[in-house]
């Protein structure tokens, strides 16, 4: 009970802080008042805050499912080639179907993300079960190869700048009417929660999962679709935010164990709060300018990832 209560308080405080932080000053009173303050709030601050919460929560859920599918604690969309593939998909859309509506581009990016992730899972099957760390290593390298292809194409067609926007998460351009696609990840989160038990089973390995009566292929496909759609929607609207999907599930599982039914809401909540807090910090450090949340998470996330890695090494000995 205390845990839930303090979580709600922390969430609310950060939510309010996010509404009040930014280049133009908003007092608490303007939350209810009219005039310019109301416009800034409704058109910019509120959409931004919601986008942060949705992206963070979605990425944390995507990371959790990814870890179940790959049966490995150290993978997430940005260490499995998923994000890079989605960016390649966006590039393809920009080149061949420039007039396509955003939702179409997102679906194309999702298809690319799915193909890339499937390729990764295929490669992972070649890796002996003991070599735990080879899995993220292979994923990172696969991501490197895919992004080399993407930057080659982008370089040829003068799109390097757009590619940069998709690969480094930044919420400063989020306005009303430009982030609503992220609600998809909310819907997918609900789907993930309902079907959580299947991923827990799939995480036990193909043989065990099938012997319990699970339709393993269908569970894998569902999981893959959820991960790809969430990643694609985030990449399309704000750009990639690394490490959220990796750190959050690991830390939550350290505290609460592995029953997804119980932990998935906490995972979504923690992801949302983490990204929100990082973005607020990014807005404060060099105010009135901003540090993009992708960079903030890059610094913070890789440090925590290092800690998690070395910690598991210490346990293994």
């Amino acid at each position, binding site marked *: 009970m205390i845990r839930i209560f303090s979580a709600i308080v922390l969430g609310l405080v950060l939510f309010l802080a996010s509404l009040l932080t930014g280049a133009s000053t908003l007092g608490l009173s303007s939350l209810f008042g009219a005039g310019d303050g109301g416009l800034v709030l409704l058109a910019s601050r509120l959409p931004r805050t919601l986008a942060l919460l949705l992206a963070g929560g979605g990425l944390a859920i995507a990371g959790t499912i990814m870890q179940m599918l790959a049966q490995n604690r*150290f993978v997430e969309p940005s260490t499995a080639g998923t994000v890079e593939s989605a960016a390649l998909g966006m590039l393809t859309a920009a080149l061949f179907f420039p007039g396509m509506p955003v939702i179409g581009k997102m679906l194309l990016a999702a298809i690319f993300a799915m193909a890339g992730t499937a390729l990764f899972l295929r*490669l992972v099957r*070649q*890796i002996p079960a003991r*070599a*735990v*760390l*080879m899995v*993220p*290593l*292979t994923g*990172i*390298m*696969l991501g*490197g*190869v895919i992004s*080399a*292809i993407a*930057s*080659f194409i982008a*370089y*040829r067609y003068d799109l390097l700048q757009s590619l940069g926007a998709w690969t*480094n998460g930044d919420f400063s351009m989020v306005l009303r009417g430009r982030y609503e696609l992220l609600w998809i990840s909310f819907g997918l989160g609900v789907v993930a929660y309902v079907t959580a038990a299947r991923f827990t089973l799939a995480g036990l390995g193909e043989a065990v999962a099938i012997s319990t009566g699970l339709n393993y292929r269908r569970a894998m496909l569902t999981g893959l679709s959820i991960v790809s759609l969430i990643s694609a929607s985030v990449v399309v609207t704000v750009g990639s935010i*690394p490490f959220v999907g990796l750190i959050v599930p690991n830390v939550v599982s350290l505290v609460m164990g592995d029953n997804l039914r119980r932990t998935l809401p906490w995972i979504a909540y923690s992801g949302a709060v983490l990204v929100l807090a990082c973005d607020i910090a990014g807005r404060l*450090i*060099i105010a009135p*300018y901003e*540090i*993009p949340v992708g*960079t*903030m998470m*890059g*610094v913070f996330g*890789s*440090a925590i*990832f*290092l800690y998690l*890695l*070395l910690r598991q*090494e210490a346990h293994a000995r």
Partner: protein
Amino acid sequence: MHADQRGRKSALIIAGLAALALVSTVAFMTLGARGNWSFVLGFRGVKLAALLLVAYAIAVSTVLFQTIVGNRILTPSIMGFDVLYILLQTFLVFALGAGGLNAIDQRVMFVLEAAVMSGFALLLFRWLFSGAARSIHLVMLVGILFGGLFRSLSAFMQRLIDPTDFVVLQDRFFASFNTANTELLGISAVIILAVSVLGWRLLPDLDVILVGRETAIALGVSHKRVVTLTLFVVTILVSVATALVGPVTFFGLLVANLAYMIMPDGRHRVVLPAAVLLAAITLVGGQTVLERVFSFGTALSIIVEFAGGIFFIFLLLRGNLR
């Protein structure tokens, strides 16, 4: 194979590689040249010198590094060395400003940077490789993550510095063989020459280290001293290459492993020239083909990243980590 025969075969391969390198150099200098020859040769000559210096620095540093870590898939850039150089540069601009940076003597700066980098390399090295049987995968992953962390930290600081200072930084760090930082050529050549002399004297000891740490110590090699000195040489070579063209992750991995594959002999006196020549052929030849045949210049680093990444995954999956 008989030792004598092997020596002859190595000499033959190296002669062949040297011929190829010469052909690509000549092609680079002359193909598609129009107008005033002295201008063309001068202009391209500077570029060629930069390419050759980088080829040398990357090939030698990778091979030496792989010898002391006893592993043919780790390279200085996979362990994040070159990104550390960028972080250091960014930090200096951040702390002193571009003006302050220019006020300091270039040579003093370089010595300072080299000292910091070698210090870090030693710390990382002692920490990662001294513990009993740490998994090589962990070492690699930690290296890659350090690279990512340094990259993000530099991006973070680049956000904080003055935009005009940032321009100074920016044109240094986009990996490009086409717009090499030619102002640094002279001092780079001198530095490379100096550390090469030091490296040359280490080669016999490094050959012994190839058989393994314990055996090498039993044979009377002062392992710690050799490793420390070699790391020093490696970090300086990496700094020079990064200062000239920016970071390239997989280039060293490619040429070093190719050299191991084609040479019948594992000794450094044979492998090192082969790796250097292969690097020169790849860089100069690749740049010529891209510029003259496909007419896009700066894409070479992207292609190398692509090929190198696939090669790395291949090495990983084949499992030849030792």
